[in-house]
């Protein structure tokens, strides 16, 4: 069924279709309408879920961690400083291997206070051990939320579904709400590998000593390093699962096909722009104009940021002369995080396109298509950069 609704409602509809059993969230702009919609669904009996109001984001994720440990399908959502307030639990959920799904409605981080969009919040959590997926429009939001539950539960790793605050969360677009029976077919009920049971008390994630040691039964239990190594190895293995789940989704719903990177005009492109989120769709207009000017440009929207799909990235960029990375986030004191990742991915191989970095749209600073056009055009025509520091677009000094 096609409806015209906001991005937040798209996310809430995905959570409803996925039959989440426990929802705990604390309202924060621009995530608020998403949690409000979910509480309405639960209140109206449209969702068989426990909606647990909490006093903070830290508690929201703590509730999800507890619920997930007992084998319930758990969901939360947040933005910016709310995400930062739950950071301790963010890392905990990954280390504990709990398949929680969380929407991060991307917003800039204070100070100074801002409620508008950039990507600094989710990017700051890229090393937490979660899988990070980014959506570019409303259809991708609802589809990705549904896929995220299957992915998280398959690999026992929590998943963040990130989408742009306001630009997607509060704008209205038509999108298809998948048929509930088909969603049930795609996403069976959550059968956890392990669930807490009062009849069999257990210690989960208690202190581990630096070395491995025998447990109370005398069996050798993994130590901290073994458990963390396992998380890393499984995150790398999860890349294949992302592709498998996308293929399964495509078969049932006839949508998808680009699990890692969504390319536009990249096949023969000499110059490829890379970015996260809805910006990649804005850049399509820029690519169209540059093509008319005779410049072979393309744009790639990264869907999977962690684990980083190096192989797909290198394959995409191998034949390009230049790569331009547009980022709404920055590793302060260094460069854009995605810029660093892309250069690192290219380094071992023979392909060496030049790679440039532009920082833009921080705290909701308007990204003008004309500025993007000018920047992208100049970046291509001027060739390799003599300096490796990121340039800022739209800065008024």
């Amino acid at each position, binding site marked *: 069924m096609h409806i015209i609704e906001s991005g937040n409602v798209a996310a809430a509809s995905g959570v409803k279709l996925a039959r989440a059993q426990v929802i705990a969230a604390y309202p924060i702009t621009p995530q608020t309408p998403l949690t409000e919609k979910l509480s309405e669904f639960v209140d109206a009996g449209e969702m068989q879920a426990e909606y647990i109001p909490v006093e903070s984001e830290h508690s929201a994720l703590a509730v999800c961690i507890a619920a997930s440990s007992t084998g319930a399908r758990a969901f939360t959502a947040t933005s910016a400083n709310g995400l930062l307030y739950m950071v301790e639990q963010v890392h905990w959920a990954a280390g*504990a*291997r709990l*398949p929680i799904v969380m929407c991060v409605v991307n917003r800039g981080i204070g100070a100074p206070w801002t409620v508008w969009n950039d990507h600094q919040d989710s990017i700051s959590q890229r090393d937490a051990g979660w899988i990070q997926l980014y959506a570019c429009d409303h259809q991708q939001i609802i589809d990705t939320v549904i896929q995220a539950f*299957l992915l998280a*539960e*398959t*690999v*026992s*790793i929590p998943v963040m579904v990130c989408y742009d605050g306001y630009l997607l969360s509060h704008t209205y677009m038509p999108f298809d709400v998948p048929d509930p029976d088909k969603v049930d077919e795609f*996403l*069976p009920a*959550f*059968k*956890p*590998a*392990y669930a807490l049971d009062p009849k*069999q*008390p*257990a*210690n*989960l*994630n*208690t*202190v*581990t*000593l630096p070395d491995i*040691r025998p*447990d*109370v*039964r005398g069996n050798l*239990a*993994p130590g901290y390093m*073994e*458990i963390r*190594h*396992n998380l890393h190895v*499984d995150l790398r*293995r*999860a890349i294949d*699962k992302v592709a498998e789940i996308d293929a399964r989704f495509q078969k049932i719903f006839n949508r998808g096909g680009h699990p890692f990177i969504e390319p536009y005009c990249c096949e023969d492109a000499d110059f490829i722009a890379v970015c996260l989120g809805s910006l990649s769709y804005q850049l399509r207009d820029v690519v169209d104009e540059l093509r008319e000017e005779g410049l072979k440009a393309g744009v790639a929207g990264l869907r999977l940021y962690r684990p980083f799909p190096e192989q797909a990235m290198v394959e995409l960029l191998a034949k390009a002369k230049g790569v331009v990375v547009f980022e709404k986030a920055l590793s302060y004191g260094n460069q854009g995080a995605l810029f660093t990742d892309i250069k690192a991915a290219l380094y071992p191989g023979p392909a060496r396109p030049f790679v440039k970095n532009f920082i833009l749209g921080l705290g909701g600073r308007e990204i003008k298509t004309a500025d993007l056009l000018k920047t992208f055009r100049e970046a291509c025509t001027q060739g390799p950069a003599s300096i490796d520091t990121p340039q800022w677009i739209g800065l008024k000094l």
Partner: protein
Amino acid sequence: MSDATFACKKSHSEPGPGDAGKTGSWRVLRPIINVNLCIPAKTNKMACFNCWLYCPDGVVTRTIPPTINYEYCKGCEICAEECPVAAIQMVEETKLIKKEK
């Protein structure tokens, strides 16, 4: 739908002594029960056992006299603090180790 080949290594254990390894090696002070003062030892009655009750590691036995498992006792001093007749003395490990050698 969880794939059994994922999350093979998790921190999961059952409650019991020694779940954090042999914590006896953490001990700086060793609790030693003076049976001449200890109430159950003196009266031959199943009485008191504050040390057994309060030990956070469950390493004191509820027996006459109570005994302490030094493989796991981490020397926190709670038993000595809770003993109503000050029958538990905390002695420096270094001194005892020297003597035992």
